[in-house]
Each structure stands twice: as C-alpha cells, then as structure tokens.
C-alpha cells in the first residue's frame, strides 16, 4: 500500500545537488587534464599486452588491440563529456529557452509551435537523433543530439510558463506588453532554474550521444567515445569484462552526477 511520500527535505536536496555539481566539476577537471592523466595517448596500442586483465601496470586492463583501458576511458570521457556539453547547450537554446520565448508569442503561433514540437516529442529522442544524423553527418552528432532532446525541453519550458495563468491575464488586461512578461519569465523562472535545466539537458544528451555512438551513428574511429568504446568491447566483454565495464561505469557516473546536479524531484525524468 502506498503511503504519501513526504517532500524531500530541502537540505538533503541541496546536499545531493551539491554532490552532483562537485562530481561534474571533478569530471570536468579530469576531462581537461585527460591528456596529462592518461598513461598513453589516444589510440596507442601495444600488441604484447592484448586483453590483459587489470594489473598495476594497466589498472583498467587492456583491450583487444592492446590499448590501455584507463587511458582510453579518460580520452573517451573527454570526448563524450565535450560532445554532451555542446549538445546540452543546443538543447537549452533550442528547447528550454525557445520554449519559454515561444509561450509569449501571439497565441496562434505559440500553440502551432507547441503542437508541432509536441508531436516531435512523442518520437523517442534517440530515433530523432539517429534520423537527423542520417540526414546530416556523424560529425554533427553532438549538435543533433541536442536538437533531438530539444522538443521535450521545449514542451516542458512552454508548459511551465502557464500562458493562461492569472498573472498573465491580469498583465494583459492592464496593458503590460508581452516583452515585459517575457523578461519576467526569463528573469524569474528560467534564470532560477538554469542550473537545473542545464544539468538535466546534460544527462539527457549524454545518453543520446553515447547510445548513438554505440549504434554506429556517433563518433567515428579513431576518435574515442564511451559509447564507441563499449560497442568495441562488446565483442570481447563476455570473456574480458574490463573492456566494457570501465567505460560503462564512467558513462553511468557522468549521467548520475548530471541527474543529481539537476536536483530532479520524485519521479522526474531528465
């Protein structure tokens, strides 16, 4: 039987958000220092240590080509993190920000946009991303992942503005211009939630970027990407678990920190 869950304590939520942002900060530092921290440059192979299990010489083991998995995971994290940041920026601009602005456009135009993007939001974002990458090129995968996540972000931002709210009606009745209302929305609502919106977009785009890479629609070899590394490890991971587990763990940690930083409420999706 369900009992009513209490709202999460603000302190606990603030701590979790803090942990999330600290984690993302640590990942960012690791990404910036990846070339320094990695023991070997990206793609460097050593045929004498193929599929070597984790050891002091290779803490994360080596893959089928003898690449050091620790170095490769760091390079892959840098690539995935960088792409996800770019995609998240696109999702914020084309989704969250555009949704907030569109809600204050003339009603027919605003609701036409809401309807069109509402239809796009019913198609899984991964499918949209694959479709858009197919139409453009794999090089644009990060931008496209952001665009694929944008419809849902647009719909959320549009609905959050509450076009028909009492304050909007009073404002319109008293002749307050739409631009003033829009400025109010952006400064009070969007501004306050920017960190949460950004972290939420980062989590969503990271999943799309890495899954697209795993399916062969993202990063192209020799570029390293966590999704691509897991796809490469798929051939050997049943016998050599370390070829997929470490990149997968890095990916899950990145998404988890982004979700924590977003401060998602009970049952909220990124």
């Amino acid at each position: 039987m369900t009992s009513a869950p209490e709202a999460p304590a603000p302190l606990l939520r603030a701590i979790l958000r803090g942990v999330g942002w600290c984690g993302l900060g640590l990942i960012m530092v690791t990404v910036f220092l990846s070339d320094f921290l990695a023991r070997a440059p990206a793609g460097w192979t050593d045929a004498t240590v193929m599929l070597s299990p984790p050891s002091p010489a290779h803490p994360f083991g080596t893959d089928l080509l003898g690449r050091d998995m620790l170095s490769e995971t760091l390079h892959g994290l840098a690539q995935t993190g960088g792409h996800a940041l770019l995609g998240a920026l696109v999702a914020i601009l084309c989704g969250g920000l555009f949704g907030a602005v569109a809600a204050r456009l003339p009603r027919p135009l605003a609701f036409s946009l809401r309807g069109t993007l509402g239809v796009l939001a019913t198609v899984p974002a991964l499918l949209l991303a694959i479709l858009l990458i197919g139409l453009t090129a794999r090089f644009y995968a990060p931008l496209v992942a952001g665009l694929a996540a944008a419809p849902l972000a647009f719909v959320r931002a549009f609905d959050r503005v509450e076009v028909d709210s009492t304050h909007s009606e009073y404002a319109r009745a008293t002749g307050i211009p739409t631009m003033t209302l829009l400025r109010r929305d952006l400064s009070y609502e969007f501004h306050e939630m920017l960190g949460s919106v950004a972290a939420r977009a980062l989590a969503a785009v990271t999943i799309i970027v890495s899954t697209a890479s795993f399916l062969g629609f993202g990063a192209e070899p020799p570029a390293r990407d966590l999704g691509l590394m897991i796809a490469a490890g798929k051939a050997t991971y049943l016998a050599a678990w370390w070829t997929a587990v470490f990149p997968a763990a890095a990916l899950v940690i990145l998404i988890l920190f982004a979700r924590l930083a977003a401060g998602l409420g009970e049952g909220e999706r990124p």
Partner: protein
Amino acid sequence: MRSFLARQAVRLVVGVFGAALIAAAISAIGAPHAHGLAPFFFAAVGRLVHFARGDLGQSAISGLPVLQVLAGSVPQTLLMVLEGACLALVAGLPLGLLATVGPTRRATAPLVQIVTATPVFCAGLALAYGAVHLLHWPVSVNMPVGASVSPDQALQIAALPVVAVGLAGAAAVQLALRRAASEASGGAFRSGLKRLGLSAFEIERRFVLPQVLAGLVASAGEIMMALLSAAVVTEWVFHQSGVADLFVKSVALADWNMAAIVVFIFACLTFVAEFAGRIASRMLASEGRP
C-alpha cells in the same frame, strides 16, 4: 466526461495527423527531384496523399512494398514491447508500490537514481553478461549468424531482450509511480478524512491508491516511449530483426520512406498510449476522489 472524451479524441486525431505530416516530410527527402523548397513541399504533399490512400510506397533497399517489409518486422517488435510492458507492470508495479512506502522510499531513492542513470545498452550488456556467467544461458550478443540452438536455448535467447525492455519499462513505471505518489502526498483531503474517523490504511486504500494508479496510467505515453526507445537499442544489442532494427538500417542506408513510416508508427503508438492512459486515469481518479 463526454466532453473530456471528445477533447482527447481531437488531440489524438490532431497528433496522428501531425505525425503523418512529419512522416510525409521525411519520406519526401528520398523523393527524386525534390531539391529546393517548392519541389520538396510538393513531394511531401504528394507523399501525404499517397499515405491517405493507403499507399506507403516501396523500400529503397529491398524494392519491396513497405507494408510487406513492415508485416515481417512490426509484429516481432510489438510482441517484444507488449511482453516487456507486461514484465514492467508485473515487476515494476509491486516494487514501485513497496518503494513508495515512507522509510523504504528514502532508502530506495539512491538505487532508483542509479538504475535510471544507466543507459539501456549498458543494462542490456550487463544482463547478457549475468545470463552467461551466472545462469549459463546462451546469448545472441556475440553469437554467429545461423548458429544452431536447441528449443530450450532458443527460449533463453529470446527471453533476454524482453527482460531488457521490461526493465526499462519497469524503471519508467517506477518513476511514474513515485511522481504520482509525490503529487498525491500534497492532497489536503487526508486530515479531513482522518477527522471523519477513517483509518490511515483506509484512506490510503480507498483514496490515495486510486490517485497513484491514475497518475501511473496517465504516464502511459511516457512508459510507451521508454519501451520503444529500449526496443530500438535492445534489438541492436541482441541482434533481433524487428522494426526498430529496420529503422536503424533504413537510416544508415538512406531509405527515408521506410524510416518515415517507422517514425509514424512509433509516434502513433505513443499517441494511442497517451490517449488510453488519459481516459483510464480520469476514470480511476474520479473513483478515488474523496
């Protein structure tokens, strides 16, 4: 209730029409001589007219009618999604209800965060690894094409993708339940009902539970999207040849007509799930209204 039904029906029709427009636009990309805005527009309108007449065109890869290709792959994916949905409800609903009980909710919150932060392809690969090393099951992940297996092994091989889709669905059910329970917790009716002499258990059973379940079915569209997204990845991971796998191959080989129809099917499934979910939610919520 009648006006609510009419509103939802209009939403469904408008949504399906919107999905058809988008599908026609995608399909027109592959049309010959559709370069430039005006030719593209006319090609898209032409495709829309053909769709309305039931002519879905031909696959650019195989040259077969799209309907014929879909008839071979849609049932497999729909079956997997359906089985996954059943599993999601069978596993996700009791676990979700248990996990929303006061102290358990706090204890399970980090686990839910970690589970929902795991991409489906990672979960699918982990599942396959566990099946091989713990259960000693054969898996299709790295199996050579045409490898012979016994009927028992075939069943084990077929079970894993369903479990992967079901787990993704269960995670979506879990999120929807938590959200609904969280919203129901704000209801001001509890104190009033307590003053009327109802026990806490009775309030939960007669008033809160229907609202939580109503919240769950209202998220049917979201759960359907989670199942479809999981199906796309799972078919790829486990080498299943369903409609999701067909979509990935169609995009890779620029068969835009086929890709457009698959997008249309997926959007329609989500719209229908949303439509049914909203109506069921309304009925459940009115039952539990104090």
